[in-house]
Every structure is written in structure tokens, then in C-alpha cells.
């Protein structure tokens, strides 16, 4: 099986520290395949990330991406992929927000690399990262009318008028 080493004791340590600090109600944890996944409320996300970086040695932000689960109350989400290179330990931290209040605190003060990742999440999912130095679209054009990775955005551009859909539909 590829890359399947489970660091049980590091996982346990991380879980214990997070629960000790934020309480068992705030942090839910679950092992998905080889990685622990923590879900924290968005009010605590910045504190959780700085605790993980400063006290548990997660010095490297591997990636950050947005998510959209239509139908849920908190339908938009962000996933932080954290990596402690010294311990060879990876975890994921998730947080969810509602469509009406899609704001999250920025992580650029913790890891400068979050800059473009957050711009990408904003560009595709419309997540607003408060405190971000330069939050604007990155891969799509600046006047793009939608957040295209949301599930309600169709794969083909709905604003196109050059295709006749009488016979084949869209």
C-alpha cells in the first residue's frame, strides 16, 4: 500500500493537546485512511493553526483548498494540509462556514505560502480571508462573474451564447 505509515503516538499527542486546549466539543477528530482529520469551528481556526505551528512543530503548510458541500448548513469549507517535517507527521484541519458569512481569518501571518493558496480558495469558492494582504482572483480573470468550483456552477460556462442548445442541450 502506498505511503501508509500511521504515526499513532504523534496523532494521539496532537489530539490530546487540541482537546486539552479547546475542549472536546470544539474539536472533532477522525482518522481517514492514514491521516487524522480535525474539524474545528471557524472562530478557533487561527488559534488552532498557531498552536499546531508553534507548539506541535507543524512548520510546513503543504496545501490549502476550499470545499463545497451543498445542502449542509455550513456548506463551504477550507482544508489545511499540515506537515511536521521533523516528525514526518501529516494532519488535515478543516473548518466550515456558511454561504452567507463565508469569512475566515487568514493564515498568511503563520505561513507566507498561504498567500496564493488563499487567493485560489477565494477565486474558486468565494471564501473571504480577512487580513489577507492581497485578496484578489488568481487563476480566473478579474471580472469573472462567479465562483466556479462551487457545485452549483455548471461545468460549461452558462454565459456563453455561441452554442445552439436546441438539439443537444447543454
Amino acid at each position, binding site marked *: *500500500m*502506498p*505511503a*501508509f*505509515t500511521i504515526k499513532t503516538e504523534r496523532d494521539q499527542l496532537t489530539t490530546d493537546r487540541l482537546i486539552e486546549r479547546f475542549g472536546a466539543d470544539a474539536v472533532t477528530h477522525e482518522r*481517514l*485512511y*492514514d*491521516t487524522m*482529520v480535525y474539524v474545528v469551528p471557524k472562530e478557533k481556526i487561527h488559534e488552532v493553526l498557531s498552536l499546531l505551528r508553534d507548539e506541535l512543530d507543524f*512548520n*510546513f*503548510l*503543504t*496545501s490549502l*483548498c476550499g*470545499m*463545497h458541500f451543498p445542502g449542509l448548513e455550513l456548506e463551504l469549507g477550507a*482544508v489545511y*494540509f499540515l506537515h511536521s*517535517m521533523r516528525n*514526518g507527521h*501529516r494532519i*488535515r484541519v478543516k473548518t466550515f462556514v456558511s454561504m452567507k458569512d463565508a469569512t475566515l481569518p487568514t493564515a498568511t501571518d503563520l*505561513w*507566507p*505560502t498561504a*498567500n*496564493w*493558496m488563499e487567493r*485560489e480558495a477565494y477565486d*474558486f469558492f468565494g471564501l473571504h480571508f480577512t487580513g489577507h494582504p492581497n485578496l484578489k*482572483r*488568481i*487563476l*480566473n*480573470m478579474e471580472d469573472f462573474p462567479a465562483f*466556479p*468550483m462551487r457545485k452549483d456552477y455548471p*461545468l460549461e460556462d452558462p454565459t456563453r451564447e455561441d452554442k445552439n442548445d436546441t438539439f443537444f442541450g447543454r
Partner: protein
Amino acid sequence: MSEHKAPVDMWKDDFAAGGNLNELTTLNLGPTHPATHGIFQNVLTLDGEIILETEQTIGYIHRAFEKICERRPFYQIPTLTDRMNYCSAPINNMGWHMAVEKLLGIDLPKRVEYMRVIIMELSRITDHIICNTIISQDAGATTPFLYYYQWRERIYEIYEEICGARLTTNMGRIGGFERNFSDLAWERTRAIIKELPAALVEFDKLLVRNRVFMDRCINCGPISAERALAYGFTGPNLRAAGVDYDVRVADPYSSYEDFDFKIPIGKSGDVYDRFTVRQEEMRQSISIVRQALEKLDKMTDKTTYHADVPHWVLPPKQEVYNDMEALIYHFKIVMGEVEVPVGEVYHCVEGGNGELGYYVVSDGGRAPFRVHFRRPCFIYYQAYPEIIKGGMLSDAILTMSSMNVIAGELDA
């Protein structure tokens, strides 16, 4: 302006007042400029030839792969991953297959894993050949760019023999390969392993201790290890800055733990270190391929090329026409009607330019619910303004080529 003046006179007035001397220039480097090797725009603010500020624009070849993936069955996605880092497309393919295999819980036979290792290391060599010859091209040495591409060509001939394609390979399948390697493919692999080391020595002799090249590259575009980690550098660029992080060792996949190889690291993270780290990595890759060939020679099994997963590996065509079971499996696979567990995995491989990660969320449907590609050069390219700040314009060109930024991967 109150009174009209001819442009020449305006310039004369300005010059007499000393005003023009301290004026800053704005220069559009790109989007399509031959020296940027891809479509990147950098709006530079220059004081003479010194770069003060850079504003980057990317996304010129964004093709919404993550969105397209949400509509495609799992086995149709490798054609998209090819088009990210097209300099080492097989690594991208294998990374995708491994991510899906992790989701499905498929164990591969050792033979298949070693075959994958061979392919991944050969594509790492092509990637590094492209990057290093482009560095030499931008440093002013045209010879390697034209001359060493023959080795890339030789490796592409191996790909061609294995899967029929050269650049965008779509090589391998979920669960293994589409067919066994032919005798000619093995022969070509052995030949390249025998001949490439001498060519690398020649390449080294041409550049590594070349005074002109050293003066050009040493201390050009450096980055410290701390800044590199903060900016999410991975791969040869991070190792050139002195951090010995390599996914092949940190999280071994595809039986990399069976191989004996070294991780070369640099010290100052400048262009010269990135160049030499890649040179050494090519040697290590050759050594890995050689070890894999030896291991395969010792095996009695010469025919296994995929795991025993009939739900994912297409049956041979003759059987599809004559055998009911094979026809059913063929139909199920092609229509994407195979069971996928609900879950999410992240799997990363050491790509040509860094940690290439695949995050797959499955809701049990025929297509993934969400796919996120961790594209190494998207993440480290944002450090470019900081690296080139205060340097010369010509150094910026060289720095960009040494960072191995691939437009397809940057924009996905």
C-alpha cells in the same frame, strides 16, 4: 501640460534638470516572452537594471482541471494530470494512480511497483535535463540545450514503446500498467542506463567548473532555508537551500524503501546549487533504475504487470470478444460503474519539481466529489518577487528558469 513641446525637447529639459536620471521604469516581462519559457507575466518596476518590485499575473493557461475531474470517472483523469507538469508526465500519472489505489485499498505486486519506480525515475531525468539545459541556455551556453535533448529523446522513445505516446503519456492504469513492457523497452532502458552516466560527466565538464558559468550562477537568486520552508518550497529547490526533504524518503511510496540512494542538498539555494542538485539527482535516478533492473532480473515472475483487480484493469481485448465475464468487466469499467468507497485521501509523490499531491474526496459516485492538486510550482512561484528583488533583470530570467516553473502545472 500648458504649452506644447516636441518630445525631444521635453527629454532635453528633463535631462538638464536631472529629473530623468532617477526615474523608475515599468517593464512588462511576459506574458509571451521567449525568455520566460511559458506564459507568465511579471510587471517589473526597475531602477535602471535593478528590480525593485514585481507583480505577478498567472492563470493564462488555466483549464479548470479540478472542475473537470468532478465529472469524469476515475480512470479518465490521468489524461488531465499529464497536462500539468508535461516535462515529467508519467510521474503525474503514477501519482494519480497511487492516490486512487490508496482510496480503493489496492496492493500492488512488487514487480509492478519496481516498474513504476523505473518509469518515475526516467521521467525525473527528463525533467531535470529540460530544466538544467534551459538554465545553461539562459546563462548563455546554447550547446547543452541542443545537445542533451537527445537523451530526453531517447527516454521518450522508451515511453513510446511502453504506452505509445511521448509527451502526454497517460501511462499506466489504476492497479498497474496497461500491458507488460516489451523487450525493446527493456533493451532501451538498459542502453540508456549504460550510456547516460558518461553523457552526464560530459555535461558536468562543460558547465559545473566552468568559470564563466560559475560567476554567472553563484549568488544569483538565492533563498535561505527558512524562507524556502515558509514559502512552501519542495523538491530540488528546497534541497538546494539545504533542507533534505524528499517525499521518496520521508513517505516512501511504490517500494522506494527498497532502494539505496542519496539525497543531494545544496547550501545557499542559488541558481548554481539548484543546477548541481539536479545534476546529482540524475545520477541517483540512474542508480535507482539500475537497482530496480537488478531486482527485476532476480524475480522469476516476468509477466505480472497489474494487480489482481478485475474491476479496474481492462481485460485483454480478445477475451472481451469471447468471454462473458471479461465483457461484463469491460463494460463496467468503461461505463464507470465500479464501486468506490466513500472517503478522502491525500497522496503525494516526489515530482520533477517538488511534492506533487493529490487530494481526492469520494462520495461513492463514479466521479470524485472533489479533487485538489497540490502543484509544487504554483506554491513556490509566489516567492519569485522576493528572490529577484534587488537583483539585475538578467538574473531574474536565469532565476526563473532555475526554479523550474512549468506553466501547465502552475495554472492547472
